[in-house]
């Protein structure tokens, strides 16, 4: 543990329950077995005391304290946040590449309650994760969020037909209007930044080729790449295809589909949407972030430029308020696309005035 705050474990726990978790629930994530003490998981609001005071003083609902989500220390009755404060870093860069950075402690932790996706088909009738812990920072140029949630199993491959990935998204809306929760509408388009665990793996380890999922894969040949049968196993994506100028054999890549990128530089995608089924990769990709698997869940930092670079992109200015919503996907539960656990509400996003 490098930090004291973790999000809550998913459907495996009752969402509303004050039910205390019985010691040694067999999941191996109890306080004792993971070596995390009650104190470490903490009930205090962490971070800079003055900072916290300033925020509370501004009348912001930051009641959602570090939700110390595991084992005996679970605080399932922690209040649900309705607002998120994006705290000004004082000039430091938002640590989007470091979800463990101490800078995140400058922002209060908010407990955002997730629910089922029961608005449009295909639905997810029961939330896979009941709540996440959220902190937000901005440096005047970038706005970033750190999300944490618990999940039993890491899902970071999408090679096989039945492999789905873990993921998380932040939706920015021009106002905290409940009607915008699901992808906005034509009059009020929304901007989404989505982190994906399989993209993170591509970024960390290089493109995850089929041999990662099928270690013994062999093929006679991949025209037009090789003539010799045994060379086929050495045909790697992306290198061999680029060298042979044969990427037309990778249709999604040839069609410029961002999902099919073979040189991945960021695990975060920026999307624009104006209603159900309309989300599309934004023309400019300046969102960034990074995720870390903690053995008990994910800690993910992600964000975007405050000033939008695409028409229809939501721009954010210090001192103003916006709408923000969240969603989480659990790959092990076959979550994908609309099969997600979105936040139950659109929260008010207060972007703190930038003053040192």
């Amino acid at each position, binding site marked *: 543990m490098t930090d004291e705050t973790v999000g809550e474990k998913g459907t495996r726990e009752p969402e509303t329950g004050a039910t205390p978790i019985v010691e040694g629930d067999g999941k191996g994530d109890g306080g004792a077995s993971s070596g995390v003490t009650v104190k470490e998981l903490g009930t205090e609001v962490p971070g800079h005391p003055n900072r916290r005071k300033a925020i509370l003083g501004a009348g912001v609902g930051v009641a959602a304290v570090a939700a110390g989500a595991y084992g005996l220390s679970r605080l399932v009755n922690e209040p649900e946040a309705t607002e998120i404060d994006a705290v000004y870093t004082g000039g430091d860069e938002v640590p989007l590449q470091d979800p463990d950075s101490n800078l995140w402690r400058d922002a209060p932790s908010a407990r955002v309650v997730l629910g089922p996706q029961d608005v449009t088909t295909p639905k997810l009738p029961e939330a896979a994760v009941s709540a996440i812990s959220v902190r937000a920072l901005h440096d005047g140029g970038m706005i970033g969020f750190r999300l944490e949630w618990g999940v039993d199993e890491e899902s970071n491959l999408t090679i096989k037909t039945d492999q789905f990935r873990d993921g998380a998204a932040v939706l920015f809306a021009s106002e905290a209007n409940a009607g915008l929760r699901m992808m906005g509408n034509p009059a009020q388009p929304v901007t989404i930044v989505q982190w994906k665990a399989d993209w993170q793996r591509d970024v960390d380890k290089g493109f995850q080729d089929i041999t990662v999922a099928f270690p013994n*894969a062999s093929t006679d040949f991949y025209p037009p790449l090789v003539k010799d049968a045994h060379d086929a196993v050495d045909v790697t994506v992306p290198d061999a295809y680029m060298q042979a100028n044969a990427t037309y054999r*990778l249709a999604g890549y*040839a*069609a410029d589909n961002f999902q099919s990128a073979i040189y991945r530089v960021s695990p975060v995608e920026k999307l624009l949407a104006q209603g159900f089924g309309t989300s599309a990769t934004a023309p400019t990709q300046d969102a960034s972030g990074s995720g870390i698997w903690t053995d008990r869940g994910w800690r993910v930092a992600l964000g975007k430029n405050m000033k939008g670079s695409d028409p229809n992109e939501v721009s954010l200015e210090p001192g103003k308020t916006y709408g923000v919503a969240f969603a989480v996907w659990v790959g092990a539960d076959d979550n994908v*696309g609309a099969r997600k656990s979105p936040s139950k509400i659109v929260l008010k996003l207060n972007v703190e005035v930038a003053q040192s």
Partner: protein
Amino acid sequence: MPEVYNWQLGRKMAYLYPEVRPQRQAGAVFDTNKCIACQTCTVACKTTWTSGKGQEYMFWNNVESKPWGSYPLAYDAKILEKLGAQNWDGDVYAGKTIFEAAPEGERVLGYLPNDLDYAYPNKGEDETNTTVDSEKYHLRLPHDAWFFYLPRICNHCTYPACLGACPRTAIFKRPEDGIVLTDEQRCRGYRECVRACPYKKVMYNHVTRISEKCVLCFPAVEKGFLTRCMRTCIGKIRTFGWVNPPEKADPENPLDFLVHVRKVARPLLPQMGTEPNVYYIPPIHVENQRFLRMLFGPGATESVETYRNAMEGNDPELLGVLVLNVASDRIISKFKVQGETATGWDDQGNVVATVPLKEPTMVRPQFDPSVAVYRYNIT
């Protein structure tokens, strides 16, 4: 859900979108009686479209042996089991389609195969329905022990389950020819289509991590040519062209003639409700008619009779349209049988094939004295 008319079910049914039929619909008839499972079609498609990395397991065209073969494994048994026993009331389907049986919160009743399901494309190959334990089995028709080959491609359905299931409208049906395509720019790899297609003809690319499917060789079709799998068919089992709904059937159009006039060709698993546009002439040697009716609908038995009648020489017109199969690499949209000859025309009115109803045969003496060898009937 809007109501649409599905003529294969003889009734209206629920679908995700209102009824919009394309200006013309590309379709095919496969004669299972002539298929020899040489897999030339499979290889033609494979080398044309799916030899890239990530597509190793894909067969947009496959040929499976019925009753046991299937690709992916037991796709038909699985969806039929999910749907549960359903009934026909004469020619009207009284059961539920995969749209009508969709569970709460889902668009379509379906399931997602895993990679092992795709690992046995030859499962059940050449296996008979029952154990052959005495010689009588091959001595009469229909056979007591039987199997037959079922070549399968995407059906370019009128009501595609894949299209209906995609929450991103990344699958579309072309208005000009009814070909169903995945938009390789819009797809985000959700695999809702893979889950939904009862024929499992949308597949997930392991490298590009999005879905792909049979494109009905649209670049060829646009130029008036047969698709790769059809034009390479050495068994000449495939009629390819345009198929109309029954009320617009044109008796001079080969597909309309087979599907609507003679009703010798039937859709595969019509009870799914997608109104597939690839039709099958059921095998005439299969004793188990219930199995045929499960696969091809209640008209299967009648089709068998019609076909047999033609093979006995009583229906030159039907014979004529079938001998035109793959007689040209051009799409035949009009045919005529005159005397002992069948003729096919393309869209522009050019004669593209003239075929005798009966191929001339020549019997040669077994011994050829000029070279002093005996001939054997293997060539």
